[in-house]
């Protein structure tokens, strides 16, 4: 009598255990997993509306449901997708694309030049962070059902590349006004979002689009994209074998490998200092190129790479990646660690007693980084004043509030990189630094022949490094891990491999 509650609790516990035991055993059938691709991501898409879409980390969410006009192969080559061929006029301001005539959106609407035109116009006028991709697009005309003519205000060497990304996601025009378009996309892509099985923000389930026009790109029946904003849960998911693949933090590589995953390493970013104030507007010292060079010499980048990224990566002093025409291997070691050289350069520039440099910090970045920066610059006599910018870190940098800052930035294709960090209008050139030589080289890259473009790009890179516009430390390795059942080809210019690059290993 006395032990009745105990007995009941024991029965409940036993029941629970037996049920879970069954489930755990019964759910992992190999047959199912070969047909479902389950990937881990760090963030969820903001909105499925094509005009509000993003790319990079969230690209797989959109690529599952939306086709693009042009497709980019893993090595960066552009190949036909919804557009079968394309051609520029002589001055590269009018682009004519031939479109497929056999594509339907999942709501039955036919894809044609008019649909493409409307999508491009909506993206350009929309609130996507990438809306500036189409800044050069002046006019889109549907010449006939399968001919689309795009007029550009000026040549844009990156334009075709943009048409392989979110800028040309094709959403059914009939769905533009749908109240639920942010959570229920209507495209012509390889998959359809299974809204019933999807928990917005956490887990997205997709089923094959039965009428998809390009079966060659579909390697799995189902697709599941899980979002792990927490490193802890991502690591648990990897270690328990829940995922076929995921982008992971470098600190997790060893444990992932121990759990049987393959580490597909790539270098997609560069880490170091942005020396924004090249005219010395807020910090006069930075106006002198010798000071900026001294800041480059001040960092023991090999030691930093070892300390911060377990040595996984390559020291560099240039912002262009090895895949780029502008890349010059000798520039990776242009400013080898040399604090005494840094001090003498500072002395030559009239800062023998050093100077004070204000830089922002943010809780988003490991605090030890800022300690290391302060320490290394102190060794050459530069006093760093760190200001906590909190969550406004990026906004403050872009608003030209700091002369210099620590930053991690991606390395894209040349023209995109130039327009992101170097040209006078680039977002990451907040002080609008301009230099006649830089402007001239950018113009050559824009309108020159292919050979002229390559030569100018190399020259621009060398000049920027000599002028010490930045103080890069290294290109850190990122890791995309895949399990034994999954193969993947990494993507040039995107942190997340493209969806069709995943294939079953067998």
């Amino acid at each position, binding site marked *: 009598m006395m032990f009745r*509650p105990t007995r*009941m*609790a024991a029965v409940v516990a036993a029941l*629970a255990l037996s049920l879970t035991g069954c489930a*755990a055993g019964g*759910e992992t059938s190999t047959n199912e997993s070969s047909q479902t691709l389950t990937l881990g991501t760090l963030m969820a898409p903001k909105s499925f509306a094509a005009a509000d879409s993003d790319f990079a980390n969230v690209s797989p969410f959109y690529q599952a449901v939306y086709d693009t006009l042009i497709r980019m192969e893993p090595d960066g080559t552009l190949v036909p997708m919804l557009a079968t061929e394309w051609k520029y006029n002589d001055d590269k301001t009018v682009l004519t694309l031939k479109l497929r005539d056999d594509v339907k959106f999942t709501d039955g609407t036919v894809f044609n030049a008019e649909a493409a035109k409307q999508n491009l116009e909506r993206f350009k006028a929309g*609130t996507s*962070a990438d*809306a500036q991709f189409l800044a050069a697009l002046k006019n889109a005309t549907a010449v006939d059902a399968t001919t689309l003519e795009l007029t550009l205000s000026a040549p844009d060497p990156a334009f075709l590349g943009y048409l392989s990304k979110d800028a040309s996601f094709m959403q059914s025009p009939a769905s533009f006004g749908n109240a639920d378009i942010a959570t229920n996309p209507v495209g012509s892509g390889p998959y359809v979002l299974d809204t019933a099985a999807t928990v*917005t923000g956490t887990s997205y389930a997709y089923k094959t689009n039965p009428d998809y026009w390009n079966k060659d790109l579909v390697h799995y029946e189902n697709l599941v994209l899980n979002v792990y904003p927490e490193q802890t849960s991502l690591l648990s998911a990897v270690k328990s074998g829940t995922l076929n693949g995921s982008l992971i933090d470098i600190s997790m590589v060893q444990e992932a490998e121990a759990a049987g995953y393959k580490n597909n390493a790539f270098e997609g970013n560069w880490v170091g200092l942005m020396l924004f104030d090249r005219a010395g507007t807020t910090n006069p010292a930075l106006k002198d190129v010798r000071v900026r060079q001294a800041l480059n010499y001040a960092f023991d980048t090999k030691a930093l790479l070892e300390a911060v990224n377990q040595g996984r990566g390559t020291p560099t002093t240039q912002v262009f990646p090895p895949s780029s025409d502008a890349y010059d291997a000798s520039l990776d070691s242009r400013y080898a660690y040399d604090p005494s050289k840094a001090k003498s350069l500072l002395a030559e520039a009239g800062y023998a007693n050093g100077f004070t440099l204000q830089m922002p910090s943010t809780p988003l970045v490991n605090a030890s980084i800022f300690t290391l920066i302060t320490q290394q610059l102190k060794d050459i006599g530069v006093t760093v004043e760190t200001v906590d910018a909190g969550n406004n870190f990026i906004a403050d940098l872009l608003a030209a509030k700091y002369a210099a800052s620590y930053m991690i930035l991606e390395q894209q294709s040349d023209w995109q990189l130039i327009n992101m960090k170097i040209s006078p209008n680039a977002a990451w050139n907040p002080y609008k630094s301009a230099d006649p030589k830089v402007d001239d080289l950018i113009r050559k890259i824009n309108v020159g022949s292919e050979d002229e473009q390559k030569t100018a790009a190399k020259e621009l890179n060398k000049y920027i490094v000599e002028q010490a516009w930045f103080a890069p430390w290294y290109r850190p390795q990122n890791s995309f891990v895949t399990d034994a059942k999954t193969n993947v080809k990494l993507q040039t210019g995107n942190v997340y491999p493209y969806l069709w690059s995943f294939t079953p290993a067998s």
Partner: protein
Amino acid sequence: MYRFVLRRLFSGVLLLFVITTVAYVLLYAGGGDIARRIVGPTATDAQVALKSSQLGLDRPLLVQYWEWLTKAVTGDLGRSWFNGQLVSTGVSSRLSVTVSLVLGAVIIAALISVVIGVWAAVRRGWVDRLVQTVGVMGFAIPGFLIALGLVSLFALNLKWFKATGYVPMTTSFGGWAATVTLPIIALSIGCIAAVVQQIRGSLIDALRQDYVRTLRARGLSFNRVVYKHVLRNAGGPALAVLAVQFIGLLGGAVIIEQIFALPGLGQITVAATGQGDIPVVMGVVVATAAIVVIVNLIIDLAQGWLNPKVRLS
């Protein structure tokens, strides 16, 4: 009794109104440049202005609040600014996850606490000392540490349970149990520690009362006295502690859900507050305030059932 319930309901609704109004004003007044945050740092001013007007943020606060309130009364809490999902859908689908976790933890805690609490109070001696010591430890170790330990042992090494993810009960009961068992255990341990102490204390007090001696003198067995009379008297305070624990566990669930990647209220709260997704934060405020009101109401009724004196007061 009806009047008692009605009065409680009315004060509950009033409380909801006050909480949501205060929350709305605080959130919107301190919101900063939300449109800028949504469209990203590299967006143009025109894009920011467009987003701002799309969301109706360019109108006076009072107008915005009135629109929110009138719609909220009909169950329409608007849409998330960051993923476009209906707030009511997002919150209700996640509420079921969190409530099943918290409810599971409270039920398990209640069952286990009664057993251990009675055991400690009746046996005293070394049993009591052991229960007290273990109880303090259970209370002192943070829930997330327990969760990490459970994941590592039962999910990653023994593979008995799922390390992450969630399967709805309607899809597969076994799958559901495999995903919620460890989170529920992690949540319930602190709760058990708290409630055991309460039950043990109340029982020890009650066992010293004159009526126990009287009942025993009339020949009732010790077990019957404990379970039928003493526990009922000691149950009131324990129930109150359990209610407080329930509400506290809603907060504790935030971290546990992050660790197990469960699509619960915790995950949506962390994401929404981090981004400044105010419609969602408001939805979470409404839902949790409603839960608190309902739990208090249920506890009041249960107290009344256990102890008729409460009904009179």
